[in-house]
C-alpha cells in the first residue's frame, strides 16, 4: 500500500518525518524521557501534597473511624440485628460488598497479569495502580466477610489449624473453598504487587532522606539491580503472571459458587462462574478508569505517564468486557426465563415487576445498554472524565447487580409464606466505611508508593522504536527476552 500510494494523485511525495515523529510523541512509549527525569517526576508526584489532600484525607479518616470501626464494633456488640438481614434474606449488603470488592480486585490482576502475558504495552504505566486496587479491594472484601459473620470472634474456627476442638473445617462447604481461594488470592496478589515494586522502592530509596529513606530501605530489601536479582525477579514475575490468572478466575468462580451451589431459585446456575468473572472484570475496568482519571487530574506529572492512549485502550477493553458480560448475563437470564420452573418464574416476576424492578432495569441499562453505545466513540474513550463517568456508571450497575443477586433474589424462595423484601439498615454505614477505607488506603499509598512502575516504563520505552518501512516510520517493538 505504501508503495502504491505514492502514485496516487495528490499523495504527498515527501513525508514530513518531523510531523510523523510528533504524531508518535503522543504515545508514552515514543515520548521517552531520561530515566532520571522520570524518577524525579514520580518522586515529586509523591511528595507534592496540597492542603486539599489532607482535607479529604481527614474527612475520610473520620468516616472510616465512625462508619467502619465504630459501626462494626457496635454491630459486634449488639448483634446483626442492627443490619438489614432477616429471614429470608439471611445474606445482605455485607456479601454484596464482598462480591463487589472482589470484583474490583480483578481489574488489577487482569491488567498486570493477562496484559503482561500477552505483552499489551499500554499496560505499563498503570499496572501498579491497578494492582493496588486488587490488594485494597481484597482487604475490603475480607473485612466485609467478617462483618457478615454472626460470631466474628470465632472466625478462626474456619481456618484449617490443628486445635483443641479436634476438628478441622468442613471442606464440603463452598465457604471453605472461598476462604482458601480468597486467602490464596490475597497473598498471591499482594506478592505480585510487591515483586515489581522492589526496583521502584530501591529507586525511591536512592532519592530519599529522613524517615522515607529508612522506610524505603527496609522495603527495598537491599535490592541493587544485579543481573541475578533481576533474573530471579523476572522469573518470579513471569511465573506469577501465569499462575495468578487461574487463581483470579478461580476466586470469583468460587465466590459465584457460594450462590450457585445453593439450591435456590435464581442462584443454582452453571453459568454463574464465568458470569461472575466477567462481571468482576466489568466493574474492575470501570474502577481502573476512575482511578486513572483521579490520578491524572490530582497528581503532579501524571499527565505524562497516563495519556489519552491509555484511556482509549481501557475504553476498548471495557467495550470488549461489556460484550462478554452481556453474553453471560443473557446466557444466565434466558435459561432461567425459558425453564419455566415455578420457583424461578416467581423470582423473575419479582425481579422485573416487583418493588426492586427499577434496580433491575437500571442494572441492565448501566451494565449492558449504555456502555457500548458510548464506548464506540473514540472521542468519548479519549476523554478521561467521560470514561471515568462511564466507569462509575458501570460500577453502580454492577453494585446493583450484586444487590439483586443477593438480598433481592433471596427474598424469593420455595416457601412463599416467608418472602420478604430486604431493607438496608446499618449496613449502609459499613458500606460507606469500606468505600472510604479503600480510598483512604489508596490516598496513603499514593504518598508512599511510586504509583508508576518507572522501570517498566523505561523498559518499554527502550523496547519501542520507530522503524522505517518504505517511506513511513512504523512503531516497532523489540522483544528483549
Amino acid at each position: 500500500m505504501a508503495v502504491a500510494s505514492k502514485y496516487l494523485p495528490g499523495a504527498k511525495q515527501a513525508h514530513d518525518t518531523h510531523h510523523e515523529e510528533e504524531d508518535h510523541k503522543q504515545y508514552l512509549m515514543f515520548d521517552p524521557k531520561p530515566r532520571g527525569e522520570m524518577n524525579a517526576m514520580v518522586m515529586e508526584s509523591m511528595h507534592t501534597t496540597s492542603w486539599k489532600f489532607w482535607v479529604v484525607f481527614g474527612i475520610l479518616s473520620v468516616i472510616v473511624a465512625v462508619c467502619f470501626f465504630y459501626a462494626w464494633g457496635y454491630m459486634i456488640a449488639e448483634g446483626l440485628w442492627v443490619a438489614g438481614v432477616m429471614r429470608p434474606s439471611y445474606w445482605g449488603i455485607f456479601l454484596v460488598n464482598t462480591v463487589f470488592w472482589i470484583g474490583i480486585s480483578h481489574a488489577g490482576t487482569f491488567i498486570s497479569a493477562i496484559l503482561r502475558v500477552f505483552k499489551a504495552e499500554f499496560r505499563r504505566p498503570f499496572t501498579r495502580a491497578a494492582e493496588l486496587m486488587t490488594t485494597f479491594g481484597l482487604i475490603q472484601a475480607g473485612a466485609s466477610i467478617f462483618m457478615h459473620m454472626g460470631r466474628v470472634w470465632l472466625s478462626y474456627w474456619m481456618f484449617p489449624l490443628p486445635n483443641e476442638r479436634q476438628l478441622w473445617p468442613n471442606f464440603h462447604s463452598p465457604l471453605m473453598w472461598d476462604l482458601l481461594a480468597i486467602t490464596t488470592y490475597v497473598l498471591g496478589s499482594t506478592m505480585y504487587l510487591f515483586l515489581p515494586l522492589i526496583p521502584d522502592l530501591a529507586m525511591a530509596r536512592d532519592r530519599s532522606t529522613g524517615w522515607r529513606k529508612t522506610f524505603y530501605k527496609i522495603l527495598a530489601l537491599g535490592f541493587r539491580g544485579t543481573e541475578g536479582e533481576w533474573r530471579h525477579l523476572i522469573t518470579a514475575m513471569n511465573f506469577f503472571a501465569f499462575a495468578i490468572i487461574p487463581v483470579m478466575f478461580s476466586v470469583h468462580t468460587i465466590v459465584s459458587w457460594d450462590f450457585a451451589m445453593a439450591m435456590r431459585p435464581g442462584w443454582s446456575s452453571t453459568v454463574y462462574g464465568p458470569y461472575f468473572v466477567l462481571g468482576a472484570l466489568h466493574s474492575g475496568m470501570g474502577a481502573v478508569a476512575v482511578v486513572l482519571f483521579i490520578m491524572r487530574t490530582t497528581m503532579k506529572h501524571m499527565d505524562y505517564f497516563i495519556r489519552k492512549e491509555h484511556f482509549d485502550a481501557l475504553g476498548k477493553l471495557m467495550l470488549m468486557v461489556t460484550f462478554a458480560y452481556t453474553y453471560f448475563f443473557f446466557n444466565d437470564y434466558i435459561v432461567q426465563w425459558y425453564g419455566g420452573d415455578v420457583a424461578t418464574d416467581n423470582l423473575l416476576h419479582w425481579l422485573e415487576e416487583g418493588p426492586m424492578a427499577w434496580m433491575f432495569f437500571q442494572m441492565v441499562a448501566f451494565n449492558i445498554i449504555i456502555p457500548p453505545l458510548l464506548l464506540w466513540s473514540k472521542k468519548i474513550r479519549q476523554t478521561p472524565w467521560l470514561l471515568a463517568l462511564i466507569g462509575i456508571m458501570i460500577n453502580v450497575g454492577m453494585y446493583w447487580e450484586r444487590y439483586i443477586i443477593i438480598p433481592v433474589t433471596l427474598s424469593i424462595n420455595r416457601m412463599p409464606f416467608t418472602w420478604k423484601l430486604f431493607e438496608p439498615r446499618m449496613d449502609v454505614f459499613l458500606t460507606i466505611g469500606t468505600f472510604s477505607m479503600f480510598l483512604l488506603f489508596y490516598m496513603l499509598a499514593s504518598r508512599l508508593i511510586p504509583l508508576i512502575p518507572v522501570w517498566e516504563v523505561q523498559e518499554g520505552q527502550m523496547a519501542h522504536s520507530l522503524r522505517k518501512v518504505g517511506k513511513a516510520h512504523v512503531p516497532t517493538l523489540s522483544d528483549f527476552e
Partner: protein
Amino acid sequence: MTVDLNLVGAKGAIAEAAEGKWGMSIDQDICTGCQACVAACAMENNISFVGEEDAGYGRSQHWIRIERFWEGAYPEVKATPFQPMLCQQCGHAPCEPVCPVFATPHSEAEQLNLQVYNRCVGTRYCANNCPYQVRSFNWRDYHTIPERGNMVNGTLVFPLHNQFNPDVTVRRRGVMEKCTFCIQRIHKAQDKAKSEGREVEDGEFTTACAQACPANAITFGRVDHPESLVSQLTHQKRGEKHLEELNTLPRVTYLKEG
C-alpha cells in the same frame, strides 16, 4: 442402620435410607392452626421472642410456623389447610454440607440434622440453603435485652429466665438454631429405655409440639418401625412430603384432606 459414607458409587447411593429413623406426621386435615405447638415449642426449647418490630421484619425465632394461604375470592374464598412448617430433618439435608465449621452435622445415631450451637460462627449459609426456610438466627441477645429485666438492688434480673429448660441450650447472638425434634427428649427416653434394658416404645415420649397439639394432628415416632403409629399414618395414601423433588429426603409427612 449406619451408612458407610465412604462407599464409592452414585451420589444418591450414599444417602441414608429414604425411611430415616425418627419421623413425624402432621395431619393437615385436623390441624386447626391454634398455635399451641408453636407456644409449646417455644416453651420447651428456650426460644426467645423478638418483639413487635423484629417479628414483623422476619426475625421471629419460631422453630415451627403455621402457614396459611388463600384460594379464590370472596365469597368463594378458602383458606388453604393450615400447614405447620418445621425442620424436616432431611436425610439428605442441603444445610449440612455448606457449613464451614460442621455446626450442622448429621447424627448417624438418630439420623437427625443437628444444630451444634457452640460451633456455629454465624455464616448463615445453612439458612440460605434450606429450601423450607425453617432456620432462625439469633440476630441479637434477645434473652438479655435490658427492657425485659427488672433492676433489683442494682442488678438486672430476668424473671423470665427461671423458665429456661436446663436440657436445652440458651442461644446467644450470632448463632443459628432450628427445630431439633426435641432431641433432649429423644435422649432421655432412649437412655431410660437402655437402663431398663429395652427399646424405646412407640408413644413413650413425644416432641413438645405433638404433646401439646389439642387435635392430635402431630404424631412423632419411629418411621422405620412399621408397626408404629407414625409409620402407619405416614404410609397413608394422603401422605405427602414437601419439596421431595429436591431429593432432600424429608422426615415429616403431611397428611392432606381427603
